């Protein structure tokens, strides 16, 4: 390992303090993520200031904007006469206080809107990520084990198809078939109209209903979850299956797996204790990525099901060009995505000692 590692990384951090290697690794990852969060805010700030057209004219109207006295007073009030750097720090300060501006569609503070919408999105996102990881790992492992056989090719076509479907269209078709035609799925929203919202603990209706012991509410909430979760799962499964297959194939070639098989260990043991364990790092990577595409998916899918999450909020904000709303969604999802990837990075360190020791 040592020779190629040296070629790869500069042997910079040699002989520092002797902190626990995992702690050092974790600290570095957290700091990197924090830097990226600052970067994300920089992106949204620049984009907010990129809006074509003069914000002064837009806010004051044409006539007032022609009076230099009014304009300069306006600019002073809103800090627009400050240098951009100062404006950025003001923006950052506001963000830290939870001020994301006021939505021009709902006229509520964006933070409040997002806080209200987030649990709904988390509910479908968590459902979809769990479901698609389970299905993706199973299908990917099967495809790898049957490399070159018919089932491998079928799975390959299926996952390619899954990657090619426009999610928003799939949502529309499934909603039409299961709700309008077959009347199997319940209508839009998170609960049918004859149910009341369960007492809020987590914000996830299914969990809250169970906590409150309302079984019928739980079933209703779960049935509303079904279609959105299905659509998001179908998409991410394609990505996961292909990736797990590649990762498992790589591991299947390893000597230790061959040894385990030669020893006559049952396939189940080989798969769970040897192959999947060895493939866990690349699989984790793709789970992080899948989470990103899932968050994107919610933006395109929720509107169809009138699911009151940040996706529908983004759809509404986008179609009204409600900039504070859109930037709020972008910031929130950007930070969530960074957080997931930070967790993934930290898990690498837990799962594979080479990661934390290499640095």
């Amino acid at each position, binding site marked *: 390992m040592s020779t190629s590692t040296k070629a790869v990384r500069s042997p910079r951090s040699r002989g520092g303090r002797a902190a626990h290697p995992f702690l050092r690794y974790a600290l570095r990852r957290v700091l990197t993520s924090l830097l990226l969060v600052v970067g994300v805010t920089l992106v949204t700030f620049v984009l907010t200031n990129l809006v074509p057209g003069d914000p002064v004219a837009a806010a004051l109207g044409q006539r007032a904007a022609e009076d230099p006295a009014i304009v300069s007073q306006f600019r002073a009030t809103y800090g627009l006469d400050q240098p951009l750097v100062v404006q950025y720090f003001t923006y950052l300060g506001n963000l830290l206080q939870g001020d994301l501006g006021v939505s021009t569609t709902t006229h509520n503070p964006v933070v409040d809107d997002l806080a209200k919408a987030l649990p709904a999105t988390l509910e479908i996102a968590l459902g979809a990520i769990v479901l698609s990881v389970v299905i993706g790992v199973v299908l990917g492992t099967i495809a790898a084990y049957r490399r070159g056989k018919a089932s491998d090719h079928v799975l390959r076509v299926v996952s390619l198809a899954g990657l090619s*479907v*426009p999610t928003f269209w799939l949502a529309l078709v499934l909603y039409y078939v299961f709700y309008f035609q077959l009347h199997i799925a319940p209508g839009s929203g998170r609960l049918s109209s004859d149910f009341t919202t369960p007492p809020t603990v987590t914000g996830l209706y299914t969990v809250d209903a169970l906590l409150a012991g309302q079984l019928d509410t739980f079933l209703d909430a779960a049935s509303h979850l079904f279609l959105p979760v299905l659509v998001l799962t179908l998409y991410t499964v394609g990505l996961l299956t292909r990736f797990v297959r590649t990762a498992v194939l790589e591991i299947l070639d390893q000597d230790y797996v061959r040894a385990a098989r030669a020893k006559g260990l049952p396939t189940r043991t080989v798969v769970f204790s040897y192959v999947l364990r060895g493939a866990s790092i690349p699989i984790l*990577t793709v789970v992080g990525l*899948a989470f*990103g595409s899932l*968050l994107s998916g919610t933006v*395109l899918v929720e509107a169809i099901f009138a699911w009151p999450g940040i996706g529908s909020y983004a759809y509404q904000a986008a179609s009204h060009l409600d900039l504070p709303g859109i930037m709020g969604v972008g910031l929130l999802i950007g930070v969530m995505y960074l957080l997931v990837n930070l967790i993934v990075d930290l898990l690498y360190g837990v799962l594979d000692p080479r990661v934390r020791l290499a640095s």
Partner: protein
Amino acid sequence: MTDARTTRPDPRDGAPAGPRDGVGAGMLDPVSAAGPRWRRPRLRLGRWSAPLGLLGAAVGILWILVALLAPVIAPHDPLAQDLPILQAPGEGTLMGTDALGRDVFSRVIWGARVTIPLALLLVVMSVLIGAIVGAVAGFFGRAVDEVAMRVTDLVMAFPTVILAMVIAAALGASLLNAVLAALIVSWPAYARLTRGLVLGLRSSNYVVSGQLLGFSPLRSLGRDIAPNIVGPVLVLASLDIGTAILLLSGLSFLGLGAKPPTAEWGSMVSDAIQNFDAWWIGVFPGLAILTVVIAFNFVGDALRDALDPKSQTIRGGGTTL
């Protein structure tokens, strides 16, 4: 694994991105010492990927023909609102009419002229920008590299669709701005790939000997390095066409791309939200997107098998919708 072209010496680059890669194959790989072994990409068509690729190519060519011949094929003006509204398919028109009395079939046909050329343009531009930035960063290193890579870090910190949505909204809703937004989020993948490949080749013996002979950096890059990069970049690009179509139609679906009267597939699906029972309004344009994307993806997949059987393509979070 021993294939030099797929080895990324820098852990920040390439397939399974991030330091993650260092743990897998790359780290134990003796290749960085051995230097690359140039070999002509051999066409290895799998038993299944070849027919699928051909099928994809056929469907793709068919769609390109449809786009070219739209004025001839389409029975109606895609913008004319002169038919009975919300007519079901078969009652006078092939795919029915929408809420404004426009022929869905003609709109689907004309939609090919919007999405396909823009997606191709988008991919070509991303490849050009990404490859140039990546090659310069990888070859010259130092500050250029640092700046370029930090910028790609920033772009890749967002899920692709989300960042494209935010940028498109800030630029103002128009098809051109949607393409621009999509371009901003798509080039970093190529920059990273190219940079990783260039970095791996830069110190290889044949490139260094070229430099000792007095080759200019431009000649090293263009003559010695570029031929070894084309394959992987092409594979990524071919797989990206479908992604580009999904991204552009997704932005239009959100109302951040094509403006209302334009016959664009994504915005046509969006129209269907107001008329759920008139299923044909959204189903047919969606089918158009699906068939085009799947066609290009089959081609890309077959190309990858043929050119680069070992590589695993992976892109930033949610590039494909």
